[in-house]
Structures are given as structure tokens and as C-alpha cells.
């Protein structure tokens, strides 16, 4: 998974490795264990949906879609290329497995709330998962969407906040603090769970709990490390939107290899 992210951004010579690496573990859990999805039926109307509201983490989403067989793994190397369908930000029209086009922060969660509402209206049992950045929480639209979801008790919706504490210009705390995040969602009538975004036991337990929570949407505040898994990218604000060069690419791949990362 992480190797795919590094390979894709390296070959794109641009893209967002930091926020992709912080999201990687939860994305792989969602697609491999949690969601009711089938790569052979990416448009099944009863499938669970995932909305990557922090659309710049597209390399993470594409990596997991490749591992799940939605797209050929070799295509990851074409990320952001002029003739590739793998756009800089997820494009539902051209990429199988992408449930919503995103990239403009704050908008994905609204689409997720719409999907959750629609499931209720149609008496369908599919579930909706949305992942947001912690900087993204600064968008007012996030709270408009949350107020609606909480007020309508959309318990088929689980929102994950990738709480890596960094945005582009600095830490979220110093730019415009969203803290306390859990209390904010709680005030909007969400069931709130705090976890370590890189601990699979905690991830598993949290999504289980979310599923059993009735009458309220769930917000999982996942404390993460931006750049997780690549020593020089970890907690480094400069690795938000920059691709590794040849040397950095090699080092990153070596480190991930050591940690037993598999690639598609």
C-alpha cells in the first residue's frame, strides 16, 4: 500500500505523499475488512460507499483500489500523467471504485451525507464512509454537513478525521485550530471514537462500534502521523504536496520494504 503511494507520486513527479501515508492504514482496513464492496461490481447499487473528502490523498485511494483489483497496479505509475485516467484528485467518471469526485476540500462530506440520507429514504442498508483531513475541518461546509447528519440521526454514516495535525502552511493548531475535534462532533450529535490511526486493533474496534451505534452518525478521530512509514516524511509539513526524487524514492522504498510492506 505505502509502496504504491511512493511509486505513484515518484512517477508523477508531484502529488501528496504525506496525507496519503497518514490515511493508508484506515483505507486498507476499510477496503479489505470493513466495506461490503466487490471490485467486479463497482456500480452495485447496494455496495457500501467511500468518499475521500480529502481528495488530495488520491494516491492512497488508487493504491488500495489497485490492491483490490479495481484498477491494474501498473497504472499507478501513470498518476497525473497527461494521458492517464488517474487524475490528481479522484474522478468518479473515469476511475472504477471511486464513489465521488473530490479535491475541493469540504465538499466530499456533503456528498457522503447525501448518500447516507438517500439510503435511509430508500430503506437500503448500505453504509457510507467519508475521510476528512483535520485542516479540512476549517471549511464551514464540513459543519453544515455534520449538523444535518447529526440532526437527522444518519447512523449509516461514519466520518473519519485523519488527525495528523498538519496542513500546508503549518500545524492545524497554529493556523486555525479545530480542537477539540471530538467535542465539536459530539455537540453536533455524533457518536465520537478516538483511536490511533496506525493501530489495526483500534481501527477494527472503532468501525465495529460505529456499526452498532444507533440513531447517531459516528466520527472517528484518528490520531495519525503525516508521512507515516517514511522516516524523512513523518511529521514534516514540507512533504504535504511534494514528490520524492530518485534518491528519496529509493530510501523510502527500502524503509517500507524493511517494515514488510507489500505492493500490488
Amino acid at each position, binding site marked *: 500500500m505505502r509502496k504504491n503511494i511512493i511509486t505513484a507520486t515518484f512517477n*508523477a*513527479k*508531484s*502529488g501528496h505523499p504525506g496525507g496519503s501515508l497518514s490515511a493508508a492504514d484506515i483505507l486498507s482496513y476499510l477496503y479489505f475488512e470493513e466495506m461490503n464492496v466487490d471490485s467486479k461490481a463497482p456500480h452495485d447499487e447496494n455496495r457500501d460507499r467511500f468518499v475521500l473528502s480529502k*481528495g488530495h490523498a488520491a494516491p492512497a485511494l488508487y493504491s488500495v483500489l489497485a490492491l483490490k483489483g479495481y484498477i491494474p497496479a501498473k497504472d499507478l505509475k501513470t498518476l*497525473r*500523467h*497527461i*494521458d*492517464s485516467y*488517474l*487524475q*490528481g*484528485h479522484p*474522478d468518479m467518471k473515469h476511475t472504477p471504485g471511486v464513489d465521488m*469526485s*473530490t*479535491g*475541493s*476540500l*469540504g465538499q466530499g462530506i456533503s456528498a457522503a451525507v447525501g448518500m447516507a440520507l438517500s439510503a435511509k429514504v430508500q430503506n437500503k442498508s448500505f453504509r457510507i464512509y467519508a475521510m476528512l483531513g483535520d*485542516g*479540512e475541518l*476549517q*471549511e*464551514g461546509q464540513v459543519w453544515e454537513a455534520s449538523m444535518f447528519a447529526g440532526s437527522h440521526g444518519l447512523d449509516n454514516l461514519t466520518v473519519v478525521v485523519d488527525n495528523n495535525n498538519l*496542513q*500546508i*502552511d*503549518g500545524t*492545524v493548531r497554529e*493556523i*486555525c485550530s479545530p480542537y477539540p475535534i471530538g467535542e465539536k462532533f459530539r455537540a453536533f450529535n455524533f457518536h465520537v471514537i478516538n483511536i490511533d490511526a496506525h493501530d489495526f486493533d483500534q481501527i477494527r474496534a472503532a468501525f465495529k462500534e460505529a456499526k452498532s451505534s444507533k440513531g447517531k452518525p459516528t466520527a472517528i478521530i484518528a490520531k495519525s502521523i503525516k508521512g507515516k512509514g517514511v522516516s524523512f516524511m513523518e511529521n514534516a509539513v514540507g512533504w504535504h504536496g511534494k514528490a520524492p526524487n530518485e534518491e528519496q524514492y529509493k530510501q523510502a522504498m527500502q524503509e517500507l520494504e524493511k517494515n514488510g510492506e507489500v505492493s500490488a
Partner: protein
Amino acid sequence: MTTVKTATRESYGNALVELYKKHDDIIVMDADLAAATKTGIFKKAYPERHIDCGIAEANMMGMAAGISTTGLVPFVSTFAMFAAGRAFEQVRNSIGYPHLNVKIGATHAGISVGEDGATHQCNEDIALMRTIPGMVIINPSDDIEARAAVTAAYDHDGPVYMRFGRLAIPVINDRADYKFELGKGVTLREGTDATIIATGLCTGASLEAAEKMAQRGLDVGVINIHTIKPIDKEIIVKAAEKTKKIITVEEHSVIGGLGGAVCEVLSENCPSTVLRIGVNDCFGHSGPATALLHEFGLDAEGIDNKVSSFLK
């Protein structure tokens, strides 16, 4: 000879530093993109006069409106998509309607955003901003013009939308007599067969295309429209009267931008045949900026091809 290339967003960041040295009533605002919009250059020089509003563009526009009523002149920055797009209604109702003295520095306009793709490539901002009464729109063609535009925006009393690019582009205005006059088009090249009216980074490419055509005996003039609103009607009508055929070139949708503005002027004052070159009512996609400009026919070669077949 290597040509100097500068992205106009870079010019913007540098110009803000110079402007503050003369006018200490300015304040610079950004929405978590200071490194990209280049207001980071200003932040480094005058951190106490730079406000990072976080990823909340609509709120930032509203705050700028409020700040401008208290004696400061805000220069508000984010990508064009989020300045003109995300915050359109805040700009329209909180800045445009009360005609407040807010200067919007919108960067990463057009498809030359490149790899980020369609969600970030704003080809609609000129059209949106043009419909707001009293909004001035400046789309500079190079580093020199971009820096002049910042001063002109400050000197103008009222809202101004400045459009800057991400891609480094050649300097074309390095003339001793260069002068920026708000609302005035600039004839860069006289021609008798047709006139290209260009704006922004397409101006340099249009000049290059005209030179290529001249080698094949086509005499095409080039006018630079840096101020899209208020537009220089006189220079446009004169060009149409002289050459009959007009071509507009812009890194923006052919709907509602420079092409639209020129057609509005000509249909009422000098009905003419106009070829609008721009983004043809479609979204962009990911790719390197120069390759995209080529694909969309907005580089010198593409302009040359389209104009040549238009004049056949």
C-alpha cells in the same frame, strides 16, 4: 539567449512586499496556500501583516470585507477556483455589493495549474467576476505587468480581482516606455489581415504565433487586454474596423471571458467575425502545464494553426 521566466504568482508575492514599503495600510490574507500563492514571500518579510485564515475561503472573503471597512486594504489570496468559485457569493454580496476596497489575488488560474487536474483548474473565474457590478478584473501577461497590476489595484478605490498563474512564463513587457494604465489595452503588434486580442499568459504565445504567421506572409496584429473589466472598447472597435477579423485568446472558457467580453463590445459597436480561442466548454485534466496548453491549442503552435485556418 535564455529568456527569463517568472510565474505571475511569484510577481504578486514580490510586489506585495514592495507595496507595503510604500503603503503600510495593506494587510495580506491567505487560506492555507501561502507557499503556493506566494503570499508566503510577504509573510516572511512582514509576518505581523499576514493573516492565514485556514482552509475557509468563504469566511476569508467575509473577513476581508469587514477589515476593509476599518481603514486597512486587504489583499486576499487563494487559488482562483476557491476565490472566484468557492467564495463567489461572499465576494458578490459582501465585497461587490457594498463596493468595498478589497483586492483579490487569485492564483493558479486556468489549465496551466497542471497535475492537480480539473478540480483545481479554474476556467470560469473571469466569467464569474465579470458579472459583479463594479468589480475590476486584471489578468496580467507577464512578471512586469503583474507587479504593475498590484500597484494599480491598490491605487484603484474599490474591489479588484487579479488573476495570476502557476506556470513560469517569459517576460514580454521589458520596454523602457512600459506603462500600466488600468482599463487600457496595449497594441503589441500592428497587423492588417486580422487582430489577435489576447490576455494573460496567452499574450506572449499570441505574439509568437503572429511572428510565425508573418514569416508566411500573414500580417496579424496583437493587442494585450490586461484589464478585462472595464474593458477598452475603443481599442477593440478600432481593431475590428481596421482588420475586420478578430481572434480572442485566453486560458479560460470561451464562454463569458475575454472572448465573451469582446463579442459583447463588437456586436453592439462593430459587428465582426470573431474566433474565440480558449477552453471549449469542457473541463481540464491532469498533466504537465505546457503539455496541457499544447493539447488545448493555447501555445504558439496551436494559436498559429487555429488563426491560420480561420484566415483561409
